[in-house]
């Protein structure tokens, strides 16, 4: 890894307050991303993936969601130290985001053209209204929609088309970093393939880096260079896609792979992960996965679990690896 990563998140912690109870959504997350690469954040419902993305974008509303600590460096500057005014310049221009549900991500009362033009005009005040609209039409053509449909409203588009428009909004200002939050989960599999292909092509074209949030290991395998496995607001394993997929090491990562039905091998029985995800309102100590882990020992439930370097860029936060590393 280079000395100066393009994006580096250090020890990020985010807490929500709900009914006066604290919800520990993100519990000390650190990762890095190099320029032009894509990173997959993989985890199940409630793992804190979206919160991580919204923290980078600084669009969490506090209260209820407050960033308690951490540093987020983009091109060497800490985003968490920036003023709200500076962030307005960065959002949409340097960092853009694609949301999970294309059905609700667009303002139902504005034409799609206006919505794309809005982000263009916000970040380039020198453009006339007409020029911004031209750019919007250009963007629509780029994501494969006829430009003449710019005057139509979101309800006139199908889910896949809406997601293309959301992508057009995100990419309109050639952002350096794209945060894609489950961009294809709501779409059918053939449309998903089209949209993922399009995101990848455009990413190459405008040389943007991407964080792809998903629960689908298959999507990561198809799209990403590196992968982080997130559980209960912590990263349990990270590395390149090859490293993690070829040698999943953390018991949770292995559990995820074992519970997936395979397409190209015959399994009679799947191996589910026993137990349930951690209650996020309880502050845990040690490894968050310990209560569900068959190989957990007393050591797993206390103290800080360190990341063990497994070679290359492959890291794993598990006591077992730690011991093996020492041994």
């Amino acid at each position, binding site marked *: 890894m280079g000395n100066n990563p393009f994006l580096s998140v250090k020890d990020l912690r985010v807490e929500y307050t709900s009914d006066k109870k604290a919800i520990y959504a993100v519990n000390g997350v650190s990762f890095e991303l190099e320029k032009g690469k894509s990173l997959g954040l993989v985890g*199940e*419902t409630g793992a804190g993936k979206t919160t991580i993305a919204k923290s980078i974008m600084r669009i969490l509303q506090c209260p209820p969601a407050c960033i308690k600590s951490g540093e987020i460096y983009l091109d060497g500057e800490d985003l968490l130290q920036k003023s709200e005014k500076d962030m307005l310049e960065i959002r949409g221009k340097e960092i853009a985001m694609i949301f999970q549900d294309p059905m609700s991500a667009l303002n139902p009362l504005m034409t799609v053209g206006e919505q794309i033009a809005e982000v263009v005009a916000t970040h380039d005040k020198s453009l006339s209204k007409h020029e911004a609209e031209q750019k919007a039409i250009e963007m629509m053509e780029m994501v494969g929609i006829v430009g003449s449909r710019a005057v139509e409203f979101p309800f006139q588009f*199908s889910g*896949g*088309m809406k997601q293309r428009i959301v992508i057009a909004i995100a990419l309109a200002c050639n952002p350096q970093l794209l945060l894609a939050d489950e961009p294809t989960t709501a779409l*059918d*599999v*053939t*449309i*998903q*393939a*089209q949209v*993922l*292909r399009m995101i990848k092509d455009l990413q190459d074209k405008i040389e943007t880096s991407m964080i792809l949030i998903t*629960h*689908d*290991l*298959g*999507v990561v*395998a*198809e*799209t990403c260079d590196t992968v982080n496995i997130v559980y209960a607001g912590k990263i349990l394993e990270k590395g390149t*896609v*090859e490293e993690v*997929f*070829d040698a999943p090491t953390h018991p949770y990562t292995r*559990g*995820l*792979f*074992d*519970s*997936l*039905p*395979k*397409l*190209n091998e*015959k*399994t009679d*029985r*799947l*191996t*589910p*992960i026993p137990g*349930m*995800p951690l209650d996020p309102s309880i502050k845990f100590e040690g490894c968050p996965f310990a209560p569900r882990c068959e190989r957990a020992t007393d050591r797993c439930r206390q103290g800080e679990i360190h990341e063990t370097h497994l070679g290359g860029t492959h890291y794993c936060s598990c006591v077992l690896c730690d011991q093996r590393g020492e041994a």
Partner: protein
Amino acid sequence: MAPVIEIRNLKKYFGVAAGTNHAVDDITMTIEKGTTMGVVGESGCGKSTLGRTIIRLLEPTAGNILLNGEDITHAKGHQLTKVREKMQIIFQDPYSSLNPRMSVEDTVSEPLVISKKYKSKAEINDAITEIFSLVGIDQRFRNAYPHEMDGGRRQRVGIARAIALNPEFVMCDEPVSALDVSVQAAVLNLLMDLQEQRKLTYMFVTHDLSVVKHISTNISVMYLGQLVETSPSDELFDMPLHPYTKALLSAIPSTDIHHKKEQILMKGEITSAINPKPGCRFAPRCPHATEACSQPQALQEVGKNHFVSCCRVKELG
């Protein structure tokens, strides 16, 4: 093995503002006892409608449905009551499928109470205890309300309700697509165990191809209300013949990073089955479409239990 379910030329049309939606159009299929028929297709292809029509939750427009050889297409009154006890449904959404105002025990015991097969409260109570342990719900949840449980447990309650009367045929409508993978695996295992213990026959409707491959004996692929291909499970994945099946299979994101397959990207988006033109409905998106595709297509047998509805299947190979 005898077929539990046979459907012949089944049609289900809906009148909508823009015309008639041919949600299920002329589908013929046989499901043998103790097997699972997977039905796959994208949203709006009519797969859920097909399942609901078979178990008589929707009135068929035309065609026949046979349960154990008995024609139940127009079953009414007492006959319909009997039919429904033999055919059950498991839903996709573990939130909307349980009445939020009923405790888990009430939900599971309701079919038993309605069937009047049990004489006393104690008998029902014993039956519920048995069902609970069968589907793996802890007895301490008997008095819980749905909102007090997580998705996986709720889905087990839905399964418990469906198997309470010991049905022969269960239509599973995307039963795991709302669940996280780790929970999904447990529910799939449960469904397979139940099938083995009770010799259940399943129709498994889903859009997730790896799940359907795992659980099904045979798979049918639907596109806009029509059956495009049906085949034994492994054969379909090894040798897909219909251009739509090929495209669908190639679009699945695979976790196998070393064998990247060539993706067949389809043109355009799925249209709708409202007032369809005759002929193959996939033709507008098909890379191989010709003039002949606008003629009505017949299901051709291409192997044992393997049928394809494409006039160019021989040439394309």
